[in-house]
């Protein structure tokens, strides 16, 4: 199996290199057969990757400890699902997964465009082929997943990091990888458009859905990771501004900016250079994220050991930045805007401000990640950039962004008059002010940022509600029928727009959840003996006794707590400490009682076996459930927006047919 997997990887490398060279030659000679051969090589490379993954999965399932990845990341006691998930727990395995997703995306692009985008495709395949060659080279020769252990084969493996033994870890990394890797597709189309000079709408149409897909995967991947941190890591939070969390956030912010600015290009023929920069930047940031996780330059729960691939990834980032910058400069005459910004009070200006804020936030996060690395390289001292730094920029750039989410869809293109602004925004603005005043009266004025965020959430929610209500009303006036039918028809006819509004609604839920749980949480830490109670934010926890449980992989000691809120009984909570003998690690196993109003979060920090006491840390995190609900709404909105619109494809085909018919 190991030999077969290794050969498959070498074959992938050869096929990817061939696809690159053949695609470039096909573009230069306009050779259709050569292009088909290059496309077939991409498909074969994907098949090779699947075979290599299959071989590694079989080795993981069979406990073949002669393979280093299997010995270092699994054990005989580890359940099968985590043995298989160890594919992405190891550096070589995760690189193989990266490569497989990349080849899969490239294969899908080839199949989607068999009869389309004839001029762009050779260069698209060439760019994707280059990336496939680089990653398959790293996987086959620098960080091989089928490498043997040095010395004697151990009888048992070293096990998997206990923090990774969580169901969310079976979904979080692959989702994030799909987000990172598929950003290569928009990048490849952008480069192809620049090389061929075909900077018309065709490349945008080809990449918009891919960008949306990457963006959704990154967003969902981050939320899955946040939930994993919340239920598994055991510190009471869900986002720690860890460098590797930030690594996923940065390309997501750049892709968000692109998804908005692309509308300005489609509508007004503006921001063409900017869109090229955003697509290239988003992909460079996704490579940077890969560099952070795989080079070992940052210390993070996500990062792997120091390795040689870091240098290669840095070189790739440099090549991507240099080549894309050179091509954009070369094609500047083709990327001139067709219009100028006429007023700062217009929808295009709102999108531009939104882009600037998103990019400013991305750069603030980038600086926070890079500064400790630079500081160590220059001064030899590792500095840390902690949560207050990120929180400051999140408030400074995030609150105006939230405001623009409400303004953007309501304001007119080109120029908006004062009269229309008053008419459109009076109810949302008055509602927001009223909500702010009410919340201040209720005692939530302790955090001005929290109060502002809540008020802005009301503002945005009202604007979105009005958009749906006015649209459905206009549709009913035109076609009659019931309100639900008008609403469904409205969304169906304008999937991209109304899917986007639903995503905006998910951002409102996210902000509500994050603001409430971070600005208004309560915490207590105490030692209790059996029968003693702890009171916090209306909750009462009474410690009863210790309990124990075990399975083949671990043993757990739990504190049994009776929970009440006022006079209502909430049942028992059992936070514990779990010992993993193979991995020689102890982890916190938190217990959470979730509700729409808030979460009661319990952590067992210590056990005094002689005195029978337990040390507990208890948090009451208001409205955290809204963050997970936001994920579901985000998914629904994203799926509506990404759903293919056959009218667009038909219109494109009709334009081409019209042009070709004239020349016939």
């Amino acid at each position, binding site marked *: 199996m190991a030999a077969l997997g290794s050969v498959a990887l070498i074959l992938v490398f050869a096929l990817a290199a061939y696809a690159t060279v053949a695609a470039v030659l096909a573009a230069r000679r*306009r050779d259709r057969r050569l292009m088909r051969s290059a496309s*077939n*090589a991409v498909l074969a490379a994907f098949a090779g990757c699947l075979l290599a993954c299959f071989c590694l999965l079989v080795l993981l399932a069979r406990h073949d400890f002669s393979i280093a990845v299997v010995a270092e990341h699994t054990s005989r006691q580890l359940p099968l699902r985590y043995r298989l998930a160890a594919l992405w727990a190891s550096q070589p395995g995760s690189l193989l997964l990266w490569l497989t997703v990349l080849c899969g995306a490239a294969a899908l692009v080839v199949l989607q465009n068999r009869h389309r985008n004839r001029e762009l495709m050779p260069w698209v395949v060439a760019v994707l082929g280059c990336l496939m060659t680089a990653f398959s080279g790293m996987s086959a020769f620098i960080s091989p997943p089928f490498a043997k252990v040095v010395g004697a084969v151990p009888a048992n493996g070293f096990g998997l990091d206990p923090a990774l033994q969580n169901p969310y870890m079976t979904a979080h990394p692959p989702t994030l990888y799909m987000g990172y890797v598929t950003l290569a597709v928009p990048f490849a189309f952008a480069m192809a458009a620049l090389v061929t000079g075909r900077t018309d709408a065709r490349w945008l149409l080809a990449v918009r859905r891919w960008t949306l897909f990457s963006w959704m995967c990154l967003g969902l991947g981050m939320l899955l990771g946040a939930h994993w941190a919340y239920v598994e890591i055991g510190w009471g939070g869900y986002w720690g501004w860890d460098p590797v969390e930030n690594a996923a956030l940065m390309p997501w912010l750049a892709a968000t900016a692109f998804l908005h600015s692309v509308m300005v290009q489609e509508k007004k023929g503006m921001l063409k250079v900017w869109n090229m920069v955003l697509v290239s930047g988003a992909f460079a940031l996704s490579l940077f994220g890969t560099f952070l996780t795989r080079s070992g330059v940052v210390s993070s729960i996500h990062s792997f050991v120091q390795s040689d691939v870091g240098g290669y990834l840095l070189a790739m980032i440099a090549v991507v930045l240099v080549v894309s910058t050179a091509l954009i400069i070369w094609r500047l005459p083709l990327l001139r805007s067709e219009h100028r910004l006429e007023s700062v009070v217009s929808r295009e200006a709102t999108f531009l401000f939104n882009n600037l804020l998103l990019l400013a936030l991305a750069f603030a996060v980038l600086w926070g990640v890079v500064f400790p690395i630079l500081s160590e390289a220059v001064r030899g001292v590792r500095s840390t950039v902690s949560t207050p730094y990120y929180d400051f920029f999140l408030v400074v750039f995030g609150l105006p962004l939230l405001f623009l989410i409400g303004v953007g869809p309501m304001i007119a293109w080109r120029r908006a008059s004062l009269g229309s602004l008053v008419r459109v925004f009076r109810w949302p603005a008055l509602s927001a002010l009223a909500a702010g005043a009410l919340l201040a009266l209720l005692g939530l004025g302790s955090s001005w940022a929290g109060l502002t965020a809540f008020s802005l959430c009301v503002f945005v929610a009202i604007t979105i509600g009005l958009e749906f209500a006015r649209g459905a009303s206009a549709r009913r006036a035109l076609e009659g029928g019931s309100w639900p039918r008008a609403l469904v028809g409205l969304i169906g006819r304008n999937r991209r727009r109304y899917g986007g509004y639903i995503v905006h609604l998910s951002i409102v839920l996210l902000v509500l959840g994050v603001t409430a749980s971070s600005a208004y949480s309560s915490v207590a830490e105490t030692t209790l003996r059996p029968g003693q109670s702890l009171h916090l934010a209306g909750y009462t926890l009474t410690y009863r006794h210790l309990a124990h449980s075990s399975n083949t992989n671990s043993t757990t000691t739990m504190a049994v707590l009776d929970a009440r809120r006022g006079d209502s009984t909430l049942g028992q909570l059992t936070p514990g400490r779990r010992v993993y003998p193979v991995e020689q690690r102890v982890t916190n196993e938190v217990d959470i009682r979730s509700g729409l109003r808030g979460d009661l979060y319990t952590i067992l920090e210590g056990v005094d076996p002689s005195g029978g006491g337990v040390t507990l840390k208890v948090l009451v995190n208001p409205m955290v459930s809204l963050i997970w609900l936001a994920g579901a709404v985000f998914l629904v909105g994203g799926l509506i927006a990404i759903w293919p619109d056959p009218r667009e494809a038909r219109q494109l085909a009709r334009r*081409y047919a019209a042009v070709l018919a004239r020349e016939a």
Partner: protein
Amino acid sequence: MSVLVVIAVAGLVAAAVLVVAWPFVSPDRGEGEPALTSHQIERIELLERRDALYASLRDLEQEARIGKVDAAEYEDERRRLRSEVAQTLGRLDALDSKHGSEQDETALPREG
């Protein structure tokens, strides 16, 4: 390396070579869109611009209907968009006459 693995590896390599070489030995079906000339590209760009302007006009109608823009803004923007449509159609005509084309291609798209 066992005999089975050697056979599997040989089969794998042979399959890869076959897949890559297939287009050179199979008949060329000639499917797909042909490559475009610079004149055709320019024409497509103008048609794209025209379609984007028609879409903007439709959006403007919708925004006026739901009260997002007032009557004066609506008239002003509508006049400007229509003038831009006329300019784009004029450029299409000029392009056609430059290339000696005789057919007319200015029909409104039917989708809304």
